């Protein structure tokens, strides 16, 4: 589905991402792990088209999409949930969801059906349908942005640190949501700092450090790597 080859992202003179290559197969959940500042989010945002790539190639279903605009990536079926958890705070929950289905705006019946499905799954969103999204709690906002991304019926979901800043119980709930999406057949690239959680749901994983991929393999292999500890904690296992 997604092939990233030799990707480099620069911010001025800073090389945030260096020769990163990632593959995500159809229906797979791949986790990109790493400490703060390792370049995970930059990689994800470059795939989404929100950050410009310096060099390298991105292919989606075999077609070259390097340097595509965010709206083009969305049209090609890649939905992105950035770590900043961007609900539109002044829009109501229902309006946020309606905007998520912007690309399917002609299909009113299908959009309404999907929205109701999410309302069944997360009754709290249904209760607050007419409230401004800015009044939701952090966890509810995270559910909303994931649901909003899914309203476009994407082929692939890019998730950036969905657990960031949430209470453990809420994190569990978000990960149950991710597992649910995976079970429904959605291809997912998940960026996580929480290695244990990220590996528990993943088929395969990559570990980034200082802008490079240091470890890659099946979730089990990566979990077994002694290096994983050192990559996060700088050697103190």
């Amino acid at each position, binding site marked *: 589905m997604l092939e990233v080859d030799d990707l480099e992202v620069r911010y001025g003179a800073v090389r945030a991402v260096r020769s990163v290559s990632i593959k995500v197969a159809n229906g797979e959940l791949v986790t990109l792990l790493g400490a703060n500042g390792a370049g995970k989010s930059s990689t994800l945002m470059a795939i*989404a*088209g*929100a950050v410009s790539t310096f060099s390298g190639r991105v292919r989606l279903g075999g077609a070259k999409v390097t340097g595509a*605009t*965010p*709206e083009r*990536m*969305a*049209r090609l079926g890649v*939905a*992105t949930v*950035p770590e900043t958890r*961007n609900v*539109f*705070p*002044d*829009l109501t929950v229902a*309006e946020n969801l*309606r*905007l*998520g289905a*912007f*690309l399917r*705006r002609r299909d009113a019946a299908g959009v309404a059906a999907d929205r109701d499905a999410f309302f069944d799954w997360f009754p709290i969103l249904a209760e607050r349908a007419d409230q401004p999204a*800015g009044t939701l709690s952090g966890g509810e906002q995270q559910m909303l942005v994931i649901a*909003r*991304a899914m309203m*476009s019926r994407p082929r692939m979901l890019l998730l950036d640190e969905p657990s960031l800043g949430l209470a453990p119980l809420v994190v569990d709930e978000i990960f149950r949501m991710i597992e649910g999406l995976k079970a429904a057949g959605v291809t997912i690239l998940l960026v996580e700092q929480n290695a244990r959680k990220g590996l528990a749901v993943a088929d395969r994983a990559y570990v980034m450090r200082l802008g490079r991929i240091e470890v890659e393999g099946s979730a089990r292999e990566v979990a077994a790597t002694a290096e994983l500890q050192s990559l996060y904690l700088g050697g103190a296992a």
Partner: protein
Amino acid sequence: MSSLQFVIDVLSLGSAYALMALGLVIVYGILRLVNFAYGELIMVGGYTMFLVSGSGLPWIVMAVSGVIMAMVAGIATDYVAFRPVRSRSITAVLITSFAFSTLLQNAALLFISPRPRTVPLPEIFSRTVEIAGVVTPARNLITIAVAIILLSLFTWLLRSTVLGIAMRAAATHLTMSRMLGVPANLIISTAFAISGFFAGVISILWIGRIGTVVPGIGLEPLLIAFIATVIGGMRSLQGAVLGGFLLAMIDTSLNYSLPQSLLQFRDAFTFSLVILILLWRPEGLIKGPASGQRT
């Protein structure tokens, strides 16, 4: 009687000011850039009406073509002055929008005339009506009615259509809305088209007041719109409307209360009050969306 007169004056002037401010703030809200060529959109509307009025076509054709040409000029502003340099630097956009504004004004000077041109409006604009003993020009009531209709229409557009929701979303976070598939160019061109629409309507109402069109006709509306949005809050559409009515109230109150000898200095009093409002509320009366960043 006198108080009803005051209310009508404030409402009609405020309606015009609010429409002017909305046309400016709709673009500012999304791009965080002031379109200095906004006044010239009003000028384009005015001259289009002047040119069409010579053809002997009915009045409504003249008015509609004025509005349409102002919208076209608005979209052209995006293509000529904003789009080529938008992602590079704010300074560049400020300069290109000034340049486009100067270009349009000079085109009017060169190809039409520096002198005022009369735009014949239907007789109802110059008629007066009497309400409860108060005599007022009919154009004041027309202005109020137009503002009510356009504000309702605009509110409906923003609340109930997907495009309107997308525009509100883009005003808080353009990149996020792009990641949902909303094309940035569509949103920005729509904002410029709406801005041009308001400018076109303003040109009808404003010429209804002053009777003629000159190359510099847009300067005063631009200034009014700018002040109204600064008082009301640059990032909020409700703020722009509120600012327009507040500014109209200040102007009208001064008109009523200042002695004849001081009336020529009215603007100095107005601006002093504006400064006081800004000292009290530097961000304007209504703060607008919480987040929001430039692209």
